[in-house]
């Protein structure tokens, strides 16, 4: 099986306070650490498990600046066979449509059986890229996969639908699947894996290599423009309870009782 998995490096905002920078269009990222988008980590694991079961090759791709290469090394250290870094100054400012064009240009003509994405990225949260790429490559697609099996040329995918239901679909390969967290238990990046990939040069493809028109991508090709970024105003109704777990539980019970919640 030839499996491709598209991944993204995102800021880990769980351990820092989010602040908007002076432009009002970006976050102050001085204290951020970066890591693979959590959904994509599950997609990498799903790809590796399928390779272990069926044989073949897993290739990881990302679109981004030089520093974003770290998530590709990470994927290689987890067990991916190859990586491709799609990087060019004119990619900067791409919206999901632009990213999808870059990815699909890189994937066109490749011997592809399965293309995996994380369902959504933690930073943009749009969940569009997988769908756009499926459209551009004219491939069938299922999103929000909670289980993924392959038998011959058919993939069987369980995925989340409205109302808490799950639906099972069969897809003819090649196909695109976007993966939900919890589909598996991603392996750790091992020290031996890091050692193995530490000297590897990851190939980089730019706008010319992909045969793209620079105006198609980046800020100039973006159809979605960011107008403003702001932190939602602090609501008056939220009350933070403090204390030990037991104290918080007691306070919560009192509040629920006082306000007719129990």
């Amino acid at each position: 099986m030839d499996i491709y998995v598209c991944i993204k490096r995102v800021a880990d905002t769980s351990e820092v306070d989010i602040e908007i920078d002076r432009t009002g269009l970006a976050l102050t990222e001085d204290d951020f650490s970066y890591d693979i988008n959590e959904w994509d980590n599950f997609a990498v694991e799903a790809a590796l498990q399928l390779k272990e079961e069926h044989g073949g090759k897993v290739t990881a791709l990302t679109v981004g600046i030089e520093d974003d290469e770290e998530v590709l090394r990470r994927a290689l250290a987890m067990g991916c066979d190859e990586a491709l870094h799609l990087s060019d100054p004119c990619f900067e400012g791409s919206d999901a449509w632009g990213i999808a064009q870059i990815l699909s240009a890189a994937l066109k003509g490749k011997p592809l059986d399965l293309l995996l994405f994380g369902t959504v990225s933690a930073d943009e949260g749009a969940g569009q890229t997988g769908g756009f790429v499926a459209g551009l490559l004219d491939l069938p697609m299922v999103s929000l996969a909670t289980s993924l099996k392959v038998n011959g040329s058919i993939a069987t995918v369980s995925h989340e639908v409205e109302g808490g239901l799950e639906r099972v679909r069969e897809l003819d390969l090649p196909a695109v699947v976007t993966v939900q967290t919890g589909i598996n238990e991603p392996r750790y990046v091992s020290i031996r894996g890091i050692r193995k990939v530490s000297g590897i040069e990851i190939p980089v493809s730019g706008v010319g290599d992909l045969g793209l028109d620079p105006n198609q991508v980046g800020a100039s090709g973006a159809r979605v423009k960011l107008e403003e970024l702001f932190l939602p105003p602090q609501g008056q109704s939220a009350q933070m309870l403090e204390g030990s777990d037991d104290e918080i539980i007691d306070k919560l019970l009192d509040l629920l009782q006082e306000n007719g919640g129990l």
Partner: protein
Amino acid sequence: MKFELDKAQKDIQKAAKRFAKGEFDKELALELETTHTYPMDIWRKACEEGFIGLHFPDQYGGSDFGQLENVLVLEQFCQRDSGIGAAMLTAPFACEIILHHGTDEQKEKYLNQVTSGEAISAGAFTEPAHGSDITSMATTAVKDGDEWLINGVKTFITNAGICGFYVLLVQTDAEAGHKGQSMFIVDADAPGIDVASVGEKMGLKMIPTGEVSFKDVRVPASSLLGVENKGFYQVLQFFDESRLGVAAQALGTAQGAFDRAVEYVKGREQFGQKIGKFQALQHKIAEMATQLELARLITYKAAWLADNKKPDAKLSAMAKYYAGKIASEVASESMQLLGGYGYITEFEVERFYRDARITEIYEGTREIQKNIIAGHVLGRF
């Protein structure tokens, strides 16, 4: 001068952080601490992922990385949990002596055991009458044909009772003082070895610390580690390296306590505002952050020098001394910032404080580190 970790080092830092986040569960740590249980499952997983002995060569189950990479891992581990982190630090204790002085057979056998999760190691140097002063040992090894006969008592032995083997410092020439000391590797199940607890400890409660007695313990000649009567020098060389690990432990423990305090002062409200808004507390935070940065720089530099074939005993002692000192101070201040909650076990900082204190004592007290530093600064005069 370049103050930046390389790509692989950053990858290792992140891998260690993620592993610790996934495995070092707060509730589990409290239970292990209360029941005085070594985190065996976590240790085995850490071995599987290559964290234990990552600075050993590939042929012995390591990854050919250096002490700096080991420091980065230990810092992350201790930052997440001071107790479990310390257990991971001490799991391959004293194995560097085997790495540098062992025969190929000894390396093959023992280093592979510690990297594969088959055995934990222990270094047995201290004796009831010989703590900081190890220039003469009461424990002896006497040649008896093709064997050595070992007798004596070692105390404050980390991992006593759970280890697979001891790396032992003994007197082989009673008349020669420190020039008559040798080292042996002794399997922990050898007849004549007995282990007793040294009693309840302030911290590091997951890790056993014991008194190990050797009564007519027979070991083959092949158990001699390194050169006969050069054991003292082998141990001193080891301490220069092992102090880097303790510095990393101290640094991570301090950072872990500090992180918890920072989170607390940003959320805790008193007198109508978050307590982190009070300048008195801000200045404390600034001092602690500066101390942490200094400890980190000195520890990384000492480890980098060791990896670049320029080991610096003075800097190694400085790293251990300073990181240990600020670990106690930062953990204590962090506890203070949490007020009453700092004194409560569930808030973790009190455990970090208790675990920090040992870094000023074991692997050479802070006073011994100062002796080493002063000795290098003043020289002979």
